[in-house]
């Protein structure tokens, strides 16, 4: 099976900080891959390199075999990558529906002349946009009001809309940066189920997540990062058993003994 995403030896540095320092992994179609690691490990920076927001200092990113390294974010999105952000990046003053419509920008269907003269084509395309936006909101299980500015909504609802917006992009690859952060238990369960449904649409998912329970349950493969490096990669079971991972997560005493939480 050919890879949807191939990341090869990715590097990026800010001044002296090597945020990502040689990261490589593949994502195959319909796969859910988790990227984990302590805060500051470089996970978000890696996402930003893949999606073109940062220009990698070295390395390559291939999407369905074609290089997208260093391209403009909009071009990478057009090539088939969609994402959410670690801290919600919605359009706060616009309605829920408009936020989702953002993901559908590349559908086209009308131009400025259609808009000025309100041609039938324009009306049809606007109706289709609205239909589709409702469909994606339904898909993520959003039940709140849809015609109001999104800044007025609760955090959990905003997170749902951000995913709906990314899904509306209909990409081959979806990058989710800490989608479960700030959600309660039942919301997390729904997220888990949503990830499976997204995968069934044929979209591969890479997600950054701190909740180990969720990660172990949802992902087929896990990439573990620390200090910009990839310290382990494998199935959840393999990763759980990897000494390097345990060390990175739990820290180590001066004399090299693995600390356990129970001591304190």
């Amino acid at each position: 099976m050919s890879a949807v995403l191939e990341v090869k030896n990715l590097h990026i540095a800010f001044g002296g900080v090597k945020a990502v320092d040689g990261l490589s992994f593949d994502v195959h179609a319909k796969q859910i891959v988790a990227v984990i690691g302590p805060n500051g490990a470089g996970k978000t920076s890696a996402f930003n390199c893949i999606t073109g927001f940062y220009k990698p200092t070295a390395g390559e990113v291939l999407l369905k075999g074609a290089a997208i390294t260093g391209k403009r974010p909009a071009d990478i999105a057009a090539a088939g990558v969609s994402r959410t952000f670690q801290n919600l990046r919605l359009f706060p003053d616009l309605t829920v529906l408009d936020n989702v419509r953002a993901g559908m920008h590349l559908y086209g269907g009308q131009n400025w002349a259609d808009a000025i003269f309100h041609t039938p084509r324009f009306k049809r395309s606007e109706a289709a946009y609205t239909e589709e936006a409702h469909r994606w909101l339904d898909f993520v299980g959003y039940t709140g009001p849809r015609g109001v500015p999104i800044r007025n909504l609760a955090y959990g609802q905003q997170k749902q809309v951000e995913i709906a917006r990314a899904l509306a992009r209909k990409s081959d690859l979806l990058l989710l940066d800490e989608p479960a952060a700030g959600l309660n238990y039942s919301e997390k369960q729904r997220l888990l189920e949503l990830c499976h449904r997204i995968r069934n649409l044929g979209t591969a998912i890479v997600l950054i997540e701190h909740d180990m329970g969720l990660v172990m349950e949802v992902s087929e493969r896990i990439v573990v990062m620390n200090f910009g490096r990839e310290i382990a990669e494998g199935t959840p079971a393999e990763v759980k058993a990897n000494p390097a991972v345990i060390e990175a997560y739990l820290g180590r005493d001066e004399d090299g003994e693995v600390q356990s939480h129970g001591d304190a």
Partner: protein
Amino acid sequence: MSENVDTTLAPKKIRPPSGRVSRLFESKWLGWVALAIAVAAPFVNATPYALNIMTTAAIFVLLASGLNIVVGYCGLLDLGYIAFMAVGAYTSGIVAKAFDLPLLFTIPVVLVMTVLAGLIIGAPTLRLRSDYLAIVTLGFGEITRITANNLAITGGPSGIFGIPGILKIGDFDFQQPAVFYYVTILVVAGFVLAAARLGKSRLGRAWRFVREDEDAAEAMGIHTYKVKLLAYTFGAIWGGFGGVLFAGHLSAVAPTSFVFLQSALVLMAVVLGGMGNMRGVVIGALVISLLPELLRDLAEYRYLAFGVLLIVVMLFRPQGFWPARGYEPERKPAEEREAVAVAGEQR
């Protein structure tokens, strides 16, 4: 700007405002009412003085609606907007005089020149951060004015005068003040409507996405640079047509009409009226252009008052007096939806 998203406070204002007054203000008919008033006005008072003021105000409305595309929709602060009007006015004046054409026939050249001006100014600057953009457009505005002031073809400091009228068919001269007023109203109404419609389209949404969060817009595949350039170009065209009307109205063009003060006044109309809301902007433009005529005695203080007003509005009502409406209808229940889909009328 995402750091401003208020996520901690409990949901508020979930329902759209439903008072009678706000329904009235959002009514579809409001535009027609405004047009009717504009058409009827000369029947109330048709002195040359009144017609002059009303024509000037209408041109000002056109400028404000154009700047609203750039500032209101797209969030790009343009402090040299009047330069586009200068380009339009000078182009049509020079071409009309040189070939002894009615102004109407200069429009294709004006269109080309203003689009070019928009691209020339926009291309290098729209990659910049928003605050740099503001100051660079200010610089461009000054460059345009100084250039017009120093070139021979633009008539130097005294400008060009004796510009031919817009059109003359047989004995009927469209240049008569009342006729010219109606022509202006027609053109301005068309442009205002077009700008409002653009705002409610795919392109208009893209502009707003860029305004609200450029990174998020990029992540959705919106080429933010192209989209901004388009906003700029449309703004330039609106300004250019304002210039043609201006040249026709005064039959003369001089550099002093294009000082920074003018750009600032158009900006105030947009900001005070309500950035992004075409109706608010039209009202703002009318207030800014007509108020000084009513308060002639206070002329010395009016710009001071405008300046202070600008600060106060930003502090207490940053969306302007009549902000863009952030609401749209909720989805109809399923059975109704079928019927609506057939009618095709969704928004």
